[in-house]
């Protein structure tokens, strides 16, 4: 056993060293601060000529990993034992604040005290949250589709590029219904038909099923991708807002994306959460949002 553990330690040390080594060519844009990356990437993408696919589109295919975190808090938050910490992912408005309505800001604070991120129970993260969870992402690209697989709760997004209309509004999906198109070197994806269940972050921010999410994927250099998502949900936010973050290509040899088979809804250990009063966020529908807003504003009138 000692020999086995020694080997394991050596392997672990080698893994650590490998992780610290520059696995990919450095990027002109620093990617650990969202706003700085966003500004740099906006300039770099104007002059960068990406590698093209056989049908002449920018080739986004490959393995990617998102850089600075946003799933804990879309806004700036410090590194703590509970958080990895990050600068604000919000690039519009320029102050880096999510433009919450008063009622929704109050509600999201209640959410965070009562409800865990749905991913704790193996549920999907939704759009755009699925794009800034943990793990690797694999982009597969054909002339007709872009497919994005990710490891956190093993979701996939199949994005048609043929201009077909969205599904009926009666259909509501965890990952919504996405439609893609090329705008020059940028893949633009519009997602509707969301089910109003996922969190946007662990601070309790959310969207209703009325939300529209517009994402833009643009290569900044051979191994760096700029990602931004504009969230438009007038019931919850005072205006549309945009987050941006960096993806870096994984160029380590023999790396592969793995299915994260989530175990039976994590049911056996959900009791630990329930024992201390936490549940899984049940979501807030548009109808519930209207009622919550009305009640909140009525309380304000009474005050």
């Amino acid at each position, binding site marked *: 056993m000692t020999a086995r553990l020694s080997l394991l330690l050596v392997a672990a040390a080698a893994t650590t060293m490998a992780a610290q080594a520059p696995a990919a060519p450095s990027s002109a844009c620093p990617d650990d601060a969202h706003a700085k990356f966003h500004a740099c990437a906006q300039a770099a993408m104007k002059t960068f000529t990406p590698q093209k696919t056989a049908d002449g589109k920018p080739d986004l295919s490959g393995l990617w990993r998102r850089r600075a975190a946003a799933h804990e808090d879309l806004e700036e938050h410090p590194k703590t034992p509970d958080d*990895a910490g990050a600068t604000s992912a919000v690039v519009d408005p320029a102050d880096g604040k999510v433009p919450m309505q008063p009622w929704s800001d109050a509600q999201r604070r209640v959410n965070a005290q009562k409800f*865990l991120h749905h991913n704790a129970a193996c549920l999907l993260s939704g759009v755009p949250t699925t794009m800034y969870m943990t*793990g690797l992402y694999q982009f597969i690209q054909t002339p007709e589709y872009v497919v994005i697989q990710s490891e956190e709760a093993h979701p996939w997004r199949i994005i048609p590029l043929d201009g077909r209309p969205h599904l009926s509004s009666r259909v509501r999906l965890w990952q919504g219904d996405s439609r893609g198109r090329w705008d020059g070197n940028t893949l633009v994806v519009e997602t509707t038909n969301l089910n109003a269940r996922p969190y946007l972050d662990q601070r309790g921010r959310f969207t209703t099923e009325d939300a529209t999410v517009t994402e833009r994927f643009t290569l900044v250099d051979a191994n760096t991708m700029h990602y931004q998502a504009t969230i438009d949900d007038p019931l919850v936010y005072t205006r549309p807002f945009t987050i941006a973050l960096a993806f870096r290509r994984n160029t380590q040899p023999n790396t592969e994306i793995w299915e994260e088979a989530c175990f039976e809804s994590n049911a056996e250990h959900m009791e630990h959460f329930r024992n201390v009063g936490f549940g899984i966020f049940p979501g807030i529908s548009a109808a519930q949002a209207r009622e919550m807003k009305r009640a909140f504003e009525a309380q304000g009138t009474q005050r």
Partner: protein
Amino acid sequence: MTRLLPVVFAVAFLMPVSTDAHHSLAAQFDITATHTVTGAITRMDWRNPHAWLFIDVKDEKGQVTPYEVEFAAANSLYRRGWRQDDLPVGASVTITGYRARDGSRTLTANEVKLPDGRTLFGGAAPGAR
């Protein structure tokens, strides 16, 4: 010897590695203090979103208390070099981590040490995947 040793060092000093977890660690665990236990492995469950190690902790009277220890996802452990037969049943490990807020004998592991003091790995539920 009592194997449960509450540690009350400053959290920031003890825990230089923050989590990048898919949900709040503080919701389930008391992250204001770490605890250390030593016990013998009885089972390892390789699961996502978290792997679980089960150990028996024996006190000075020979009383055995079972503990459950949470780790990162099985995928993450595998990427770090873990394999299923690396921690056989009966092996002794010392684990430092946060205890569950519900009072159960449950820890989330930040560090695992072998009997000779070497650290096998660190990190509780980070997104090092």
